[in-house]
Structures are given as structure tokens and as C-alpha cells.
């Protein structure tokens, strides 16, 4: 398969996601309201009740990571809707590399997720959350990309296995919520009991939250290098598995 053709396939699938995004713009921007409420209300309340300084700043990278997670997993699992609505047949019958299709889908989804992440970063900044530097904010963008790719591919892998809407609900409640709650998005990692600390450290999202903390507020409990290595390995692994499972799909 020629490199040109592979690129064309990836681009086509990305283009499709963008065309869909264009129409869902208001819904996607609207979905930023919930995390914003979280941050403003919870951030303010916790900060003042427990007398924690800069709790909003602490929480903001966590909220951004949470939005990335939701958006990515949802984007990946949407392969399930493609099967439901029949469009999956159209792409599986095409004479193209299926790994490229999965990759294009992932790039499309991650673009959407990053747009949400960046918007949230800017809005929170406007609402008075103080970030360290503009450079830090810019460096957050590639980190958002790695986080997004990892979870979107996880979503694709799951979508090849789950058949029904109940399966989708299960993913949302038994995977997405625990990932968020166990990620250190809302609490510091240092004073946790052992069982919780282990769980948190096994969670790839934790490293995403920590990496964003490093770039946005300039401090993280896990060294940035460790974060980057874990996030990249996670993204490569899930992309390989997701692409492989997608390639073997029957409709």
C-alpha cells in the first residue's frame, strides 16, 4: 500500500469527523458548561471550606483532562454507532488499509477533543484561573493530543467488542467515571492511603492530569518525564490494539 494512499485514507476519515463536528459545534461547545460549573462552584467551595490556596488552579488541569477523557472515549466508541447505522460497512468494504481508517477516526476524534480542551483552557483562564505562562499553555496542546489518542483508541477497541447500547452505558459508568475519580484530578496524590495510591498510579489518566499540571501551573507530583513516557506508551499500545481489533471486525 502506497504511503500516499494511506495518507489519503487517514485524511478522508479525519475529514468525515470534521464534517460531523462542524454540524455538532453548538452541542460540543455547550458540553463545556458542566466542567466549567464543576470548576467554578466546586473549585471555589473546596478552596474556601478547607482553606486550600489556589485550589481552582490545582483543579483546572484535572477538569481539562476529564473533558479530554470523555470526549475521546466517546469519539472512539462512536464506531459502535457507525455499525448501528450501517456506515461501518461502507468503510469496511473500501479497498483501504483498516488500520489507516482507525487512525483517521482517532485523529478526527482527537481533533475534536483538543478543540474542547483548548477552549476550556482559554475560558477558565478568562474566568480567572491563573496559568503559569503562555508557553506552558501552548505546550499543553501536544499533551492533550497524546492523552486523546490513547483514550480514543481504547474507545475504538471497546467498540469492536460491545454490541449494544447497554454495553455503551456500562463503558460510561464502569470505565469513564472510575478513571476520572481515580486520577488525582480533584485531590493531591501525596496523602492517599496505600490502596488508593496504587489504584491512582495504575490509571493512565493520572499521568495526563499530572502532565497538564506541570505545563499549566508549573508543578506536578509525578515527574514530567515519567508522565510523558507513560502517556506515550499508553497511546501506542491502545492504538496498536484498537487498530488490530478494528481490522478484524466483521459486520
Amino acid at each position, binding site marked *: 500500500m502506497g504511503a500516499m494512499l494511506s495518507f489519503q485514507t487517514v485524511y*478522508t476519515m479525519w475529514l468525515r469527523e470534521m464534517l460531523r463536528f462542524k454540524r455538532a459545534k453548538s452541542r460540543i461547545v455547550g458540553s463545556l458548561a458542566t466542567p466549567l460549573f464543576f470548576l467554578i462552584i466546586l473549585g471555589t467551595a473546596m478552596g474556601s471550606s478547607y482553606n486550600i490556596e489556589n485550589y481552582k488552579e490545582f483543579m483546572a488541569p484535572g477538569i481539562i483532562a476529564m473533558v479530554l477523557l470523555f470526549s475521546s472515549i466517546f469519539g472512539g466508541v462512536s464506531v459502535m454507532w457507525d455499525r448501528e447505522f450501517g456506515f461501518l460497512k461502507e468503510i*469496511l468494504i473500501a479497498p483501504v488499509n483498516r488500520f489507516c481508517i482507525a487512525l483517521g477516526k482517532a485523529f478526527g476524534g482527537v481533533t475534536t477533543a483538543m478543540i474542547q480542551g483548548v477552549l476550556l483552557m482559554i475560558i477558565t483562564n478568562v474566568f480567572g484561573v491563573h496559568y503559569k505562562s503562555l508557553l506552558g499553555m501552548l505546550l499543553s496542546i501536544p499533551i492533550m493530543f497524546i492523552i486523546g489518542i490513547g483514550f480514543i483508541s481504547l474507545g475504538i477497541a471497546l467498540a469492536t467488542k460491545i454490541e449494544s447500547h447497554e454495553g455503551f452505558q456500562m463503558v460510561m459508568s464502569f470505565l469513564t467515571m472510575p478513571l476520572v475519580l481515580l486520577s488525582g484530578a480533584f485531590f493531591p496524590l501525596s496523602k492517599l492511603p496505600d490502596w488508593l495510591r496504587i489504584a491512582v498510579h495504575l490509571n493512565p489518566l493520572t499521568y495526563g492530569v499530572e502532565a497538564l499540571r506541570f505545563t499549566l501551573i508549573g508543578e506536578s507530583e509525578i515527574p514530567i518525564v515519567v508522565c510523558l513516557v507513560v502517556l506515550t506508551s499508553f497511546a501506542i499500545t491502545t492504538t496498536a490494539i484498537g487498530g488490530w481489533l478494528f481490522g478484524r471486525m466483521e459486520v
Partner: protein
Amino acid sequence: MNAIVTNQITKSFNGFIAVNEIDISVKEGELFGLLGPNGAGKTTLINLLSTMIRPTSGTGTVNGFDIVHDSASVRAVIGVVFQGSTLDEQLTGLENLDLHGRLYGLSAGLRKKRIDEVLDLVELSHKSGLLVKTYSGGMIRRLEIARGLMHHPKVLFLDEPTLGLDPQTRLHIWDYIRRLNREEGITIVLTTHYMEEADNLCDRIAIVDNGRVVALDKPEKLKSALGSDVIILTLDTPEDAKKFYRVCKETGYVSASTKDQTVYISVKKSEEAVPEVFKTAFTSGTNIQSITMRKSTLDDIFIHYTGRGIRDELVDDITYMKYKLQTKR
């Protein structure tokens, strides 16, 4: 050279055999029909040949490529119009076609040309900018066909291409299918419930029932094998009909079948056969309520081979198509 060859191809779903040791070969440039009732296994056979599912046993080739071991090569030379909708409803008709062109590696110029061409064919040019979710069932079907034709494949599979379309559009589509086949030399395999569609379009027809091919020949041959006329008798009771049917079989008419209190008898020349039929009725002591004669159709062939009419299970096309489309939502 044969465009398609299958060798004892079989597909079972959890023990249920949907396609049962089918052997067919389709010549290059042929327009081949698969005719059969609901659940006969037509779609499953097309899914096998188009590499969407893998056979449980047996093998097949399309354009010389093995459908299991060389599925990528098969996909490169085929086009498929599936039975249910496979469009992205969140996109416009135009966007759907454009993405298709890109997936099949058509250049921007060629995409535009082909898109105009196929939209014109299915008369959707004026709707191409609307979201597919606002299309009617028939429009969705037409767009789907348009898309399947866009990349000019070597072998084209059409699963119920004209199901639920109005007569006028159906004629257009038939015309275009014929043109693609004659002028571009595209081998076409289509499935259908419509006798007249198979009769009108196909060089050869395979009648499929319960996962097996029960007859395969040119439409004329299939018809002449039965005799060119049909005599239809209505008797007093279904029991009488059964009895009469047995007598007919023994007396060696070309073919006979029965349903409720009606008996169908295929004969070479009805004028000469009618006196015989009356004689048979008289000697077997059955009372004939009415008698009709007509030229035989593919329907009769179908009844002959499967023991029932192809339309028996179908309520009507539109309801059926709506059902088919809905099951995809």
C-alpha cells in the same frame, strides 16, 4: 475467464446454515441474478463474496482473487450496494459521495465528474446539499446506488437495488445497470424479489432457497424447461387439489404444483392440454370450479422449484423496505 467462482461455499451462524454448499460461477461481463424469498441466503452469499464475512467452509474467488486469503485484492475490484442503508446520515448526500470517491482514490476532478453523473442518474442533484437524515426512504436508496456506481468497479454486487422504488426510477436504474454491464463490461450480481427484474436484466438466474441453489439457467431456458403455458385450476377443496396434483404428476405433465385449492400445471401448449386436463379430472372424480390459462412466468418457475410463490411472505415492498431500513436504525 470467470469473474466469480464458488466451491462448496458454506456459512453457518451458530449452527444455522444460511448458505449451504453453493457452487456457482459467473462469467466475466455477465449480469447474474440471485432470486429467492426472504431468508434464502442471498445477502449472506453477497457478504461472503464481498469479503464482509468469512465462510465457515468452502472457498470462492472474485476476479481470480481468493475471498479469504486475498480479501484486500477482492475489495479493490468490487463495488457493493448493500441491502440496508450504509450512508452517514449526519452528512449531506454530496459529502457522502465525496468521501466515497476519496476512499476509492479518485482524483478531485474525477470525483466531481462522477458525482454529477450519478446524481443526475438518480435525480438527486437538487437534494445533494441536504443532510441524508432528511431524505425519504426511496431517496436514500437512490443515493446508495449512485454511490456504489461511482468508482466503476469490475464486479458490482447489488443487493435488492430497486426495492421500494417507484416504477419510473426503477426503469432508470435498470437502464443504467444494463448500460454499465454492456458498455463498461462490468460483471454484475444482483439479488431481487422481483421476477420481472430478474427476467428483464439477467443473463442467468440462480434460484436460491434455504441456502441452496435449486435452479440455475438463462431466464428463457428456465421458462421453457417448464413449458410455455400454465393452466390454473380451482377445485372444491385443498384436499381435492392435492389429489389432483398427485394424479397430474403421475400422468407426466411437464410440471405441476399446488397451493390451497389451486393447482398449477405447466404445459407445452395449453390448447392441446386442456382436454387432457378435463379427462384427468373426470377419471379422478374431481370437480373443477374454474380454469384459467396464461403464458408462464418466472413466478411459475419459482413455485416449481421451491413449492411456494416468491411473494408469499411479502406484504408489500414499501412496508418491507421501511422495515429493512428501520432495522438499521
